[in-house]
């Protein structure tokens, strides 16, 4: 279980997180929605330690993440980045097997390649792409490779940063279905940030709405449509008028 308590973060005069309180239960898929620039990525990166909060605590299974042993902590996570963040200089299979070829989880090269090919197959990519470089792949294929890399070491917790951004609706649907299948199959805890409502409905068990640095609403995805919160209603229906300023 991941617990965020009164987490704040500012960049100069820009107060991005203003006291975020949120609990992500174990083996549940939490989707955080909110407009662009509302701090969703900062929140996600704060949990991973890529951004240091100004105040508040973030706990994983009751332990403050700042006090956790860094490698052991990160070994529990997998992450799919918005743009894939594949390493240009490495072949596709080396990207997928990156964690398996270094550090505590190190495996022999042949075994790491075999696992990488299996994970690529799991996300619908054949062995013919394994020896290509990321620049030779389409955006959708890069996302799938990023997903394969995120699950390669079978992490307990997987983060997805805008998993469908930049994809056509069909490919977005494929990625959403893959994420849902993999999270259920692995029994992983998932945290996704997105503003794509089709992703929310496909991936989420729970939904949290982040606006102006605080969580405005959180609850099961089944209750989202009937939620009385005006922020949530404006966001999920994409209305230009409401409490959220359309021009920021």
């Amino acid at each position, binding site marked *: 279980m991941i617990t965020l308590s009164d987490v704040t973060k500012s960049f100069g005069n820009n107060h991005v997180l203003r006291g975020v309180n949120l609990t992500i239960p174990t083996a549940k898929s939490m989707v955080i929605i909110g407009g662009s620039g509302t701090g969703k990525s900062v929140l996600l*990166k704060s949990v*991973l*330690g*890529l951004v240091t909060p100004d105040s508040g605590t973030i706990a994983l299974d009751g332990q403050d993440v700042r006090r956790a042993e*860094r*490698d052991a902590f*990160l*070994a529990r*996570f*997998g*992450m799919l*980045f*918005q*743009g894939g*963040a*594949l*390493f*240009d200089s490495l072949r596709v299979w080396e990207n997928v097997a*990156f*964690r398996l070829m*270094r*550090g*505590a989880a190190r495996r022999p090269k042949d075994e790491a390649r075999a696992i990488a090919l299996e994970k690529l197959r799991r996300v619908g990519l054949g062995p013919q792409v394994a020896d290509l470089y990321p620049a030779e792949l389409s955006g959708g294929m890069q996302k799938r490779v990023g997903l394969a*890399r995120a699950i390669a070491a079978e992490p307990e917790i997987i983060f997805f940063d805008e998993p469908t951004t930049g994809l056509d609706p069909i490919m977005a649907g494929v990625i959403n279905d893959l994420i849902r299948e993999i999270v259920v199959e692995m029994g992983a805890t998932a945290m996704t940030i997105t503003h794509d409502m089709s992703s929310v409905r496909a991936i989420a068990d729970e939904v949290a709405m982040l606006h102006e640095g605080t969580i405005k609403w959180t609850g099961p995805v089944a209750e989202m449509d009937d939620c009385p919160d005006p922020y949530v209603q404006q966001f999920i229906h994409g209305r230009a008028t409401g409490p959220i300023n359309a021009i920021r």
Partner: protein
Amino acid sequence: MSAAPDPRSLGHLGLALRSIGRSTLGALASIGRVVLFAAATLGHLVRPPFYWREFGAQVLQIGWCSLPVVGLTALFTGGALALQIYSGGARFNAEAVVPSIVAIGMVRELGPVLGGLMVAARVASSIAAELGTMKVTEQIDALTTLSTNPMKYLVVPRVLAATLAVPVLVGVGDAIGIMGGWLVGVTRLDFNSVTYLKNTIDFLEVWDVGSGLVKGAAFGFIVALLGCYHGMNSGRGAQGVGKATKSAVVAASVLILAANYLLTEVFFTS
């Protein structure tokens, strides 16, 4: 405590002083950040893990691939130096010093400095652009989430490779530069080939070569460190990467020239 006076009340002088003060503080803060970055790099260098494969790739990239540009620079510089010394020496009948001055000038000064500057142009820009692009495309964050320290994986191999490879480049450049002088001396200035080479060898001391190689190591460290520093601290987008690349080359070039003066003071005036 009373508030600081508004510099505008002091007129142009106040505004100028404020501007100078801000620039000075900014420059000092930058120097401090680079020093901390260098200390962190050295700290990671002596602690495992060490990524040998990345180190090997960087030795090839920085050392081997820079050889053509450093070699050509040295060849033409050695040739031009021979012509200049011959022309200048002719004013007081000292044309015979061409071989020794070309050799000393190349190994002590021009080999390391021009080699360092060419490597700065080629390598500092390449490192800053590569790491800057990795930063803006979140590849550096991805490394961290994959339990790999970016300082160890990206910075240490590059800095160590440059520190070891640039002296070798300088040594090769020295030899090519001397050969450039010999070629011009023999073909254009009517020197006897054997005499030219004998004069070159007789007048060179081990420390002449050694000091140039030490300078090369220092310049290699500076080039890779500043390339990595500016790349890892790149701003967002294409403009941020472009600015980081430019800053890396400018800072590395200026620091090479400053370090060259300081090292020359240390090596040859005591």
